[in-house]
């Protein structure tokens, strides 16, 4: 997640397999648009409540990272350009 904090930009969509409640804090801190959890993982504990309080959409997909990213890319969503 330190990579997300370092590289994500406001409005980014975050595809991750981490389901720890910290995803909400990290996503809100960086003003991300939403989070997609892959491989059918369900958020743990009170992650959903925290996400609702922060107004952060969380989606769950049975697809692995490679495929969900591939399909999103096909819809015109590109990766974050390298800033060095």
């Amino acid at each position, binding site marked *: *997640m*330190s990579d997300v904090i370092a590289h994500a930009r406001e409005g980014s969509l975050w595809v991750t397999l*981490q389901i*720890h409640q910290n995803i909400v*804090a990290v996503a809100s801190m960086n003003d991300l648009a939403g989070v997609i959890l892959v491989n059918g993982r369900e958020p*743990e504990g009170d992650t959903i409540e925290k996400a609702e309080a922060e107004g952060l959409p969380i989606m769950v997909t049975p697809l692995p990272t490679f495929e969900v990213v591939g399909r999103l890319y096909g819809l015109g969503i590109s990766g974050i350009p390298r800033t060095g």
Partner: protein
Amino acid sequence: MRQLRADLHLHTCLSPCGELEMVPSAIVKEAKRIGLDVIGVCDHNSAENVAAVVRAGAREDLPVIAGMEITSREEVHVLGLFGDEGQVMRLQDLVYENLAGENDPEVFGHQVVVDEFDNVLRLTDKLLIGATSLSLEETVQAIHDSGGLAIAAHIDRERFGLIGQLGLIPAGLPLDAVEVSPRSPVGDWDNLPVVSFSDAHFLDDIGKSSTCFVLEEGTFEEIAKALRSEDGRAIMKL
């Protein structure tokens, strides 16, 4: 009260990534040679060599703290330190129940269980390099339930450290301390006590990083007091 130098995060030949020379008497000898006053044994997801090192240390008057380095399901490493071997062995039962897979020694390395005289007793076939199905919170809770201290290992490291994996220390997580890597700048970690140990997997790395405590003696209870700054016990500045 005395100043005691402690390196409480040492692996043994039980850790698949630990060198086979990391056997009890060699660890104790090296620790004594470089002047450590207390050591701790924290293998990955197992404590099967703890008792052997404790006894090898007792032969040489070197206190050995029982411990384990647990991999949570977020792949965060957490050290559990205990007052006796029984506590860590009970925690091991829970860890093993939550640890899937079988080790392939050719791929990940041998996991050698030894006695206090370095004799090989058996190989353990649990996949110790793997992650448990325990969440970070459950891991800390399990350590506390077993009477131990929970320390987030190498918190500043990119891989397997709490910050690298989860970005920030989860609010309200009842850690007893955080461990920082050798030569890392000491940061402010939510006002938690900061310690530094070597995480040695090789004999040469023992004591590469250590923490100086002000204690009466090198026991678990005294170290626990130092982490809470009780009764004059303390951590010297790193």
